[in-house]
């Protein structure tokens, strides 16, 4: 399951408290790598961490599974983590608050430029895959109602129930814009729940539509279908390492190690790696080590 220990009982305060504690006792030549609270982010974080360890020999501290985009952003701008993997479309819409744009190159260029001037953060070149939101339904439903695109879904939606994570419901490139673009109308307001639990809820028939991630291994494993975004509502979400410019300036070896990862992971490869973690339940550190050994010997 992609959901973690950071549940509502402990709340955001603990995350912030822990993060500041870590910031306070951070010392010496230590590279702190963060990640967001889902499998792919943890996996890429681990690949980045191991790559730095084996290429530079510097000690790496892992601060994984932080509570989402905004927590990571606050952590990196305040210097509590040195780098994490972010997605261009997420940075463009959720952090920089721009309206979604379609062209991947222009999104990347403006995100990289604005991050450098506004936050002193450097975007590496993308890993190569695009992890867009996947509006997913069960395969039998898709077959029965002939659903291939999100536009098709608009016909069936009035009888259906949706379940979405809190971040998707709040983001500007999330639920509100999606319903506006496609004229979607569900039987009831969507159920707000933990992102990791939405897959389970869909597979067990408790909801009929969810918003997952297109590179998630669970989509194929649970017999789900991702509908095509035929009106191109979602912006491109290319993953890349975002680092503090200061850190890269101090450790050029780290920048070189990260550069070797650029363009190395396709959509299909990312899906395979996620499935190894979420479906085959292999250890993330092992997956990362095997991948690095095969692709960057």
């Amino acid at each position: 399951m992609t959901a973690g220990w950071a549940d509502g009982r402990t709340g955001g305060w603990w995350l912030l408290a822990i993060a500041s504690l870590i910031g306070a006792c951070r010392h010496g030549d230590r590279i702190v790598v963060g990640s967001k609270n889902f499998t792919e982010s943890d996996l890429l974080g681990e690949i980045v961490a191991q790559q730095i360890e084996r290429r530079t020999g510097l000690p790496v501290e892992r601060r994984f599974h932080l509570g989402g985009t905004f927590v990571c952003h606050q952590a990196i701008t305040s210097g509590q983590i040195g780098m994490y993997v972010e997605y261009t479309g997420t940075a463009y819409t959720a952090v920089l608050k721009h309206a979604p744009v379609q062209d991947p190159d222009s999104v990347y260029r403006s995100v990289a430029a604005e991050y450098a001037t506004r936050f002193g953060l450097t975007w590496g070149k993308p890993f190569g895959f695009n992890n867009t939101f996947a509006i997913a339904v069960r395969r039998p439903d898709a077959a029965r109602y002939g659903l291939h695109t999100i536009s098709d879904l608009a016909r069936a939606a009035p009888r259906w129930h949706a379940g979405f994570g809190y971040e998707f419901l709040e983001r500007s490139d999330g639920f509100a814009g999606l319903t506006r673009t496609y004229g979607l109308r569900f039987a009831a307001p969507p159920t707000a729940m933990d992102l990791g639990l939405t897959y389970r809820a869909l597979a067990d028939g408790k909801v009929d539509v969810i918003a997952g991630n297109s590179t998630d291994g669970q989509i194929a494993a649970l017999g789900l279908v991702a509908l095509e975004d035929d009106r191109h509502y979602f912006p491109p979400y290319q993953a890349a390492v975002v680092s503090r410019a200061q850190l890269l300036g101090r450790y050029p070896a780290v920048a070189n190690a990260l550069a070797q990862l650029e363009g190395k992971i396709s959509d299909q490869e990312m899906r395979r790696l996620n499935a190894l973690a979420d479906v085959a339940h292999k250890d993330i550190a092992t997956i990362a080590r095997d991948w690095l050994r095969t692709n960057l010997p």
Partner: protein
Amino acid sequence: MDLVRFYARNSQEVLGLLGQHASLVAISTVVAMLVGVPLGVVLTRRPAWRAPVLGLANVFQTIPSLALFGFLIPLPFIGGIGATTAIVALVVYALLPIVRNTYTGIAGVDPAVREAGRGMGMTDWQLLTQVELPLGLGVILAGVRVATVVSVGTTTIAAAIGAGGLGVYIFRGVAVVDDTLILAGALPAALMALAADALFGLAERRFAWRGK
């Protein structure tokens, strides 16, 4: 200041979530009492069951809530998404203090008093309802008090499974790092916990007095 403005703008929603929160706490605590008090009584009659039952209740407390929800979603009747699943989880978390305090409260009754009751020819049922429960009530109530106060905080996780409550603000706030939103959920939850504690404090004093 932001918080005041937030409440003013969303008063309808806040009251709705507050009501949801309170009813989740109330229902789950009542169910936990209906299960926990008889279970505690049974343990005083079957001492051999004590260690395994309390051990199990202990283990229940350590299951992470999201993992528990994951297990519950596919189950019929007690699972799915929404209030039922949340209540099942909350009951599981509330059981331990209630069972343990019921056991302790009854086991702590002076043996001489119990003997006197038996000497008067009381049946086991009479002994329980007329001697042991009234005398142990203070301790039992203390267990329910702990369960309720903890439950007010724990109920924020109901938002992870679509059951609403004040956790909705906390989850939304954490997702977008909005301190006002987090506080909008956390502050009334804290006040509710204090209120519940004070209410039980009053009840305990009243019943302890009547028991004398």
